[in-house]
């Protein structure tokens, strides 16, 4: 995945989870980030969709439970 895309994804996480340190973002998962609930998930998906100009279907969200999962998802869409 190009670095620029990962940086943009990190920015999305930083906006939705402002208390998360920059070095924690790459390891972020629903289980280790405080406040990553269903509302935060929808907000995060909307911010990422807005940033990357794409639509993330609601049924895909159940699989996107970490920064890595989002990164892989974006890689797949862009390949």
């Amino acid at each position, binding site marked *: 995945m190009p670095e620029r895309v990962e940086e943009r994804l990190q*920015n*999305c996480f930083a*906006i*939705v989870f*402002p208390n998360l340190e920059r070095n924690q973002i790459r390891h972020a998962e629903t289980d280790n980030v405080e406040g990553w609930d269903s*509302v935060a998930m*929808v*907000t995060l998906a*909307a*911010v990422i969709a*807005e*940033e990357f100009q794409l639509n993330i*279907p*609601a049924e895909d969200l159940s699989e996107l439970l970490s920064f890595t999962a989002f990164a892989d998802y974006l890689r797949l869409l862009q390949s």
Partner: protein
Amino acid sequence: MKLSEALSLINKAAGYRREVKVHLASGFTPLHLKSFLTAFLQRENLTARIMVETGMFDDLVGNVMRMGQSGSALGVCVMEWPGFDPRLGVRRLSAWSYKDSADVEMQVRTAAARLLGALRGAAEAMSVVVVLPTLPLLPVASTESTQMSALEASLRTTIAGLALELSGNPRIAIVRNDCIVGAPGTFDIESEIAHGFPYTLPHAAAVAEAIARQVPQASRKKGLITDLDETLWKGVIGEIGIENVSWDSEHHAQVHGLYQQLLHWLATEGVLVGVASKNSPEIIERAFKSRPDLLLCASDVFPFEVHWDSKAESVSRILAKWNIGADSVLFIDESPLELAEVKMAHPDIETLRFPAAAAEFFEFWKHLRDVFATTTVRKEDVLRATSLRQDDQLQTQEAWATDRDVFLQQLDAEISFHFCSESSDERAFELVNKTNQFNINGVRYTVADWHAKMDEPGSFLLTCSYADRFGSLGKIAVVQGTLEGKSARVHSWVMSCRAFSRRIEFATLRELMLKFELESIELDYRLTDRNAPVREFLNTLGVVETSPVLIKRAESERACPKLFFHTLTEMGSSRKATNAREG
């Protein structure tokens, strides 16, 4: 605004200590609307963190009912069709058909009636912004989707009726749907089904922005100064003559006529309209007399500054006669040079070029409407220009009077004091929140704070109206405080600048001391950038300028100049006329 920008704005405000609570009531999950609303309100507030609270999903009426008890500074109600009847949404499935239309209509009417009551109740505690359904009705009728069905016509009539009832309430602002401008596409059916949030992101941003624009701004302007040639009319009157200036479509000058019409409307709403024109005063006087087709009457204008001095000088004179700051005034001229000159002399004034092309006029018109917007035109607003004109006459007469006491005695003035312990006086609330000069501390209140202040034990509110032989000034002073035995603590005391130089402040102080049999009054005084008249009053009383300021009855009596008023006093609903000339 993008969602990421909204969230960044919210994150930046996390450090503010003070919070302003806003209650958002909707029948759907507010989700991104909440984020956008927080951000748009936050953008206007640089001192406190905006906290938007929301209610329960799928309970529009219940959420509005809870709004009233939320203690919020602002309530926002966003309606969409399923909030009136779930059958008009996509989240609940039921086997209904056109045969049930009458039942849907009745359900919507019932919900609208309940909403009306709930919103009126909430508006007693706070300002409320209402958004009527913004999304299209689902194609549930038997007609083609582009055709309005009887069901839709009926439902829209119900909503229009609700809007009509709500629009009469000065604390309720209804957003005009045609002012909600987002990208094409408003309804996100996927998001509605999956998350209960029916808006596309651009539509959510547009709705939130429209809501934020309804929040009353303290910066509503009070006066407009206009040029005449190529502005109020087409043509240069000194060159082409009175009979040849025009403002109609026949002369391709319709926008000048619309401008005159708009200025006339504003003048009747209490906006001060002054003229600054480089012209011969005789010509302009004749023009206003001999052209009865002018839509702006001479009586709408005060003052006329027509001469060959600079426009900046004219503006200075007009501001002095109006006794308001340049930041409360809009200056309109067609010449960029004149606009620049006025702006240089009065940096706080807003200058606006009269549109050179008719195509630009609609935006110009809307801007004027916005900067002078008000939900209610009060009697005092309408009286403003008249009383200023009278004040001008009064000052002329005063200049002739050698003795000020003689002059004041000749005014035949009457003061009406009204004491009460209720917070429902809209004019009093407005005066406290917009008066700068005679204002003991400059403190502004939200509706909720004002109610809370009035609910304190021993709380009182004194309002004062004034009239003299030159006419009525209406309600011009407000004192709010609490009684503590033989003393009173005054939290707020304001007086309109139109009422200066009449010794009304001394009469008010005396009235308070007498009515409550006080020995002293403490003022929550704070020197501000603009309340020099209060400082001057305190100096006249000879009291020490501390915070709070202590005024003893004996001292205030000694310092009080002769008063020449007929005094009327109302306690609550009972009216007691002392009707004695003091002095």
